[in-house]
């Protein structure tokens, strides 16, 4: 465990394990998914099982290139079976006294769409698992199709911008809030511009998963699909936090609190201008995006206030 000191902890202070991935893995250059995946076992320790599914993570977790793989225990599932497979593993490990952290690791498409039923079921049953969603706001592995995590106005290959089309017409599912209403033992949002915050939450998740269900939602911009320069992805993460587009918060037993309060939130345009998936948006589109963001943040703040 990390010592409580006045000195601000660095992300390395939370590491207890060597990197479990080899070099040269087959993820896209600049994608935060790679660093996210490498960070998880470093903090949680090697005694974990990754449970995954066809997704951006799959080429490495499944082992498309067995020359650049990982050293972890892993179960590849169908997209409709991640949280339920994790349930089967976790129940048996606990029954037989095997100390293991069972970690689901899927994209937003699995979590918010096709795999939502078993995820919701596992949360309701308070299974002792950690479900980590890396949210790149669409089906990026199959070529940037819209998911229910895709924000309003975003250009995707199934909500293309054209003479008539103006990107996705409806707003995204507010997934962290949806999961909060399941009252998991622990819930957190995280993104890689704030790696200490992420690592700290992972450590907490490991402890809390001994007592119940844990959900972590990681904001994970896609350099290819969102059209971001690959050296600029962490900046996009930071802008998402600074605009309150993706606030950093956590909740124990359904009681939310912000883990980072942004002093002077920046307007949404400072986030959208960093990528080209929103480049077609007009003033009124941005105003609507700001309105949705403000509404969501106000709800979160209200819930945070209510739990004080």
């Amino acid at each position, binding site marked *: 465990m990390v010592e409580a000191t006045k000195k601000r902890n660095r992300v390395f202070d939370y590491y207890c394990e060597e990197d479990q991935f080899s070099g040269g893995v087959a993820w896209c250059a600049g994608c935060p998914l790679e660093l996210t995946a490498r960070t998880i076992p470093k903090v949680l320790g090697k005694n974990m099982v990754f449970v995954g599914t066809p997704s951006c993570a799959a080429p490495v977790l499944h082992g498309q290139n067995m020359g650049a793989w990982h050293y972890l*225990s892993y179960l590849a599932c169908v997209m*409709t079976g991640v*949280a*339920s*497979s994790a*349930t*089967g593993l976790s129940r*048996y490990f606990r*029954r*037989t006294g095997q100390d293991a952290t069972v970690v689901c690791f899927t994209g937003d498409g699995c979590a918010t769409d096709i795999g939502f039923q078993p995820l919701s079921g596992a949360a309701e049953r308070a299974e002792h698992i950690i479900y980590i969603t890396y949210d790149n706001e669409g089906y990026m592995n199959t070529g940037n199709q819209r998911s229910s995590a895709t924000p309003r106005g975003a250009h995707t290959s199934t909500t293309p911008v054209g003479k008539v089309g103006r990107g996705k017409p409806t707003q995204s599912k507010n997934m962290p809030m949806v999961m909060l209403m399941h009252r998991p033992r622990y819930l957190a949002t995280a993104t890689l511009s704030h790696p200490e915050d992420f690592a700290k939450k992972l450590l907490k998740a490991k402890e809390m998963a001994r007592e119940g269900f844990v959900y972590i939602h990681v904001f994970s911009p896609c350099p290819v699909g969102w059209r971001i320069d690959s050296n600029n992805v962490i900046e996009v993460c930071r802008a998402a936090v600074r605009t309150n587009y993706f606030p950093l918060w956590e909740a124990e037993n359904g009681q939310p609190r912000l883990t980072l309060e942004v002093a002077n939130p920046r307007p949404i345009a400072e986030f959208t201008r960093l990528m080209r998936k929103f480049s077609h948006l007009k003033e009124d589109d941005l105003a609507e995006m700001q309105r949705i963001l403000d509404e969501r943040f106000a709800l979160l703040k209200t819930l945070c206030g209510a739990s004080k």
Partner: protein
Amino acid sequence: MKAKKGKVSVMTGNYAAANAARLCRPEVVSAYPITPQSEVAEQISAYVANGELDAEIVEVEGENSAMNVVCAASLAGARVFTATSSYGLVFMYDTLLQTAGYRAPVVMVNVNREPPGIQAVSGGQQDLISTRDSGWVQVIVENNQEIIDQIIMAYRLAEDHDIQLPVMVNYDGYYLSYLAESVEMPLIEDVDAFLAPLKSQPPRPRIIPGAATGCGTHGMEMGYVEARYKHWSALERAREKVDDIDRLFGEYFGRSYGGQIEEYRTDGADIIIVTSGSAAGTTRTVVDAKRNEGVRVGMVKIRLFRPFPEDRLTEVLKGRKAIGVVDRSLCFGWKCGPMCMEIKALTPDIGRMPILSYIDGLANLDITVPHITRVVDEVNGAAQGKPFQEVTWIPMEE
């Protein structure tokens, strides 16, 4: 060594199935309610609640999850059980394929019912037929005693080191699920003894936390082909293993079923009626009556549907004069019933002869003594060179 006599009592097919599962001591059980299976899940939950079974029960939110729970637990090393039917079976279809591909020795009861099509809450084997190529071992049983005995045998088969495949035990919904019959329930210590040889096998591969173990690759090229070949070969081996286990079961418990197929009065028979499931009882009655009339007829009950008992069937069907196959399901896009199609595929081995296809018993319509009598008469006519109809939908002609 022989098993002691078990307690004889009257119970429905569903209670018989739940009881048999309890005797095999599954460690993780997961199921979702569906007519006509629900009592199996309820009864197992009751065993756990009453302390009669020490198992993890996962009450999931859909059959897809039930199959994922037991598949994953099995891959971690657990003995598992689940039960479903019809819509449930097709809702778990993706993981059904994965469970077989991962060689997870899951034992599942499938209470046969018409699957989605035009919405039917009624019996039929179409659900089983729709999962024919899933890579599972599929067995069909005839009565409540056979449900019990086959579930016990299913564990011995599924977890056998040479097999390591999931096994689906099928019985007719409504006809058996809700039918109360007298059965002998084996003693749990005798079931322990019958399953004990599994413990002395080499341990099967499993997912171990902290070790680089697991399931699933992107399945590219030769790795995929090799895994599929091994899976295919394991199914090929299962045929003989089913016969062996049936024989061992008979020696120990005093009941056996013929293994892959059951033959009834096939000695000296000119014609054979092929069927499966609860319809076999009716067929046996008709065979007896017709034998008394001097008709040289016998019955073959298909117990093992996948892998298909090609050799055993060839042996018994070769040299007959005609065959009638009664199917409780359809083969869309092929001009006969599904099991009839399989029997016809044996033609190069058994020689050309009239093979008559009968569709009956769909949607809870009874396969009656007059129906089977008609089948025997027509097949007998065909054997004597009379013209015959290739496919007959019996209820449509009544």
